[in-house]
Structures are given as structure tokens and as C-alpha cells.
């Protein structure tokens, strides 16, 4: 079977990999690129644990073929903190105890980041609906929702009163 050659930018690093045509982006991230922060919970797009940003769009990496992403840019959880500075969402998740086992956390952080990039002032309902594709079985979502709303508040503050 002939492998396909793919060029991508992941967390702003240009890199290339070889993949089988049926490999998913999730397979390649985890098995070939050692980016295991992106988690596999179902492989059918029903749990959101494998969420990444593909060309500025939130997707489940289990529902993307690795071969498709040639020329794309991808953001994963490993690129969320800038150098040693955590993203506000990451800080708020810790502060609010918004994780217990933590397996869903990378996917939820990525999804929440995508939300706050398009909506700086979401309502509780908007956060709940946006994150409906990210299953969490430990927390009952309460502290996750509070953390996202608090992070949004903080980010609006950081960006000054004219933001949003």
C-alpha cells in the first residue's frame, strides 16, 4: 500500500508525515506525531475528546482523514499555552476545579477556545449548546460552564472595554 505524503502546520510548526489513505487525523496525531494530548473516546464524532482546530474550524480529528489536511494548519491542546503562560481557559479550569479525571479536558478546552474566539460574551445557554458535543462524565458540566464563563469575563477584561 502506498503511503501519502502530507505537509501541515501544527501549532505553528511546519512538519510533514506519511500516512495510509484510511488513517484519520487523530491516528496520525497520536500514533505518528506523539501528540497524545488529543484523546480518543469514541472514533465516531460523538464525544469530542479528539477536538482540534483545523484551518480555524473546530472539528473532531477522528472524522478527518489525515490525507485531507495537506496544506492545512492545525491547533491542538499542546499549542494552547504560550511558552510557559497558560491560556486563560486553562487557568480558569484549574481554578474552578472544572476537571476530575481530565480525559475530556483537552477537547473541551479546544472547543471552548473556538467559542470564545467567535463569541466573546456567550450566555450560559450558548456555552452549554456549543459544548454539547464534548461529553464529560465526571463533573456534571457545572464547573466547566462556570470556568468558561469566567474565562470569557477575564478575557474581555484583558482586552479592554472596547473588546466584544
Amino acid at each position, binding site marked *: 500500500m502506498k503511503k501519502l505524503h502530507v505537509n501541515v502546520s501544527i501549532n505553528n510548526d511546519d512538519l510533514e508525515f506519511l500516512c495510509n489513505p484510511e488513517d484519520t487525523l487523530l491516528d496520525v496525531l497520536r500514533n505518528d506525531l506523539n501528540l497524545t494530548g488529543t484523546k480518543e473516546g469514541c472514533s*465516531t464524532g460523538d464525544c469530542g475528546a479528539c477536538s482540534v482546530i483545523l484551518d480555524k474550524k473546530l472539528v473532531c480529528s477522528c*472524522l478527518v482523514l489525515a490525507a485531507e489536511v495537506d496544506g492545512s494548519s492545525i491547533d491542538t491542546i499542546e499549542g494552547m499555552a504560550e511558552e510557559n503562560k497558560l491560556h486563560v481557559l486553562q487557568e480558569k479550569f484549574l481554578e474552578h476545579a472544572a476537571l476530575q479525571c481530565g480525559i475530556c479536558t483537552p477537547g473541551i478546552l479546544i472547543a471552548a477556545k473556538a467559542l470564545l474566539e467567535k463569541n466573546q460574551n456567550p450566555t450560559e445557554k450558548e456555552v452549554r449548546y456549543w459544548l454539547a*458535543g464534548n461529553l464529560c462524565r465526571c463533573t456534571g458540566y457545572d464547573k466547566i460552564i462556570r470556568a468558561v464563563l469566567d474565562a470569557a469575563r477575564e478575557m474581555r477584561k484583558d482586552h479592554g472595554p472596547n473588546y466584544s
Partner: protein
Amino acid sequence: MIFVKPNTEKEAVYLLNNSNGISRILGGGTDVLVQMRSGIIEPELIVDIKNIPGIREINEINGGYEIGAAVSGSEFNNYPGLKEFAPGIAEAFDLIGSSQIQGRCTLAGNICNASPAADTAPALSVSKCIVKIVGPNGFREDLVSNIPISPGKNSLKKGEFIKSIIIPKRPPYSSDSYIRFTPRSEMDIAVVSAACFITLDQNKLIKELNISLGAVAPIVVNVTGINELVINNNLNDDLLSQISIICSSSCDPIDDKRGTIEFRSHVAGVLAKRAIILAHSRAGDKIEKIAR
């Protein structure tokens, strides 16, 4: 398996037409990848159409819209004016899957996958939307409602694929709506769904009323016998109850893990009623807006 990402329609048609085994179009991939992973299909050829010029575009044409086959749910819903033009279709498209799925799912995929529960199928049917198909014999057009023919099967012929979907121009006081029933608020498959397209005159008398029901038969049910009942009438409770009964009796559902025959038939009537009320108020708002 071979993966190809052609740059022209012609190339895509050629590949599809010359493949001997199972071939699949990759637009959003939200159904195809799940089927591949679970072993339901083992395609020999995957044709990723996203490099074909125009396939990811939305264009206004003849007072309606042409939606490229690879336009995703979030692209559709963020396109200025589209949601206002066809709120029912936007609702249906938006209900497919999570925020993650919205970044990938397409109208063409939803129709071609031919699930009885496909959200956009009833919504596109009530508005008499059209698909533009490319194939070995050139272009053709067909109604969306002619594409799914049975669960998992569509009417496209070998070598053909959908290029775009046309949402036709609408009369002035018309609107649409889509409501589905799912046990969860999100991340679910419609157990029953109802779409409504309505046109009023400026006195709020009904000129046209189409209802389509999803997940209550092998393919979308375009309910017949309603226009006769409602044309030139005001909407009232009595009419709504009559339509609700017609809708319930138009269903030919199955008992399965998601719902029972009894439940689906009853709720189809309930949702049809709710969809009509919603579409009617939207169309009514237009009259008032213009009056103001």
C-alpha cells in the same frame, strides 16, 4: 483504498466512473468516516471534492441561493442573510451534530447518506430545493426529495456527484421552519421531525402550505392533501388539529431503539403543528415589517 483530491469536476467524474469497487465522495466526511471505522463500508476509492472550484462557495442566484456541495453547516449559518432567507433550512442544518460536526457536515452529504432521519431532507423538500448533479453525461438537475430512495441508498448514478444545492426564490410573505424531536437537547438523531414552508398573502390568508416529515418512513414524507384544506384560509386551531391528524396518519414508521410506531406517529402530528405555528409567525412578521 485510494485517496484522491481532484482539482476539477471532470477529473472527479472520471475517477468515480472508472472505479470498479465501492467509491465515496468526501465532503465533510462525518458519515463516511464513521461507516469506514465501523466496517460498514470498505471503499476502494475516496474522492475528496473540496479542491473543486466553487464547491465551497455560496452564491445568490435568481433571488435564491446556490450552496456548494462542500459548504459546511457553520459556513452556511454564518453567511450573511441566509438564515433570514431560509430559517427552517438553517435550523435543520444547524441541528446536525455538535459544533465540531458543524465545521464539516454538508447538505449534499446529509441528502446522499439517505438516512430516514436526515435533518435537512425534510427542510429542503418543503422548499422544493434542487440539486445540481455532475456526471459522465454532463449536468442535470433534480428535486432534493428525489435523491434518497431508501435508507442508505440514493438515486445518483455511477460517476455522478452533487455539485450544489439550489434554494429557490420565495414569494414575498413566505417562510419556513424545522422542528425535530430528540430525547437529548443536542447530539442526537431525530426520532421524528417536521418541516413547514408557508406562503401568506398580505391579509395573512394561506396561499401555500407544505409539510414534510422525517424519520417516520423509509424516506421523507411530503404530506399531501393539506393545501386543499388551507388555501385562502386563516390559520386556526381547528385547521391545526386537522393537519396534525393528517400528518400522524401519513406516517409509516418502525419500532426501533429510538422510538415506537405509536410515539413517532403521534409526535409527527405535534411537531407539524408546532412547525406550522413557527413558520406562520415568521411569514406574518414579514407582512408586519413591510406594513411598518
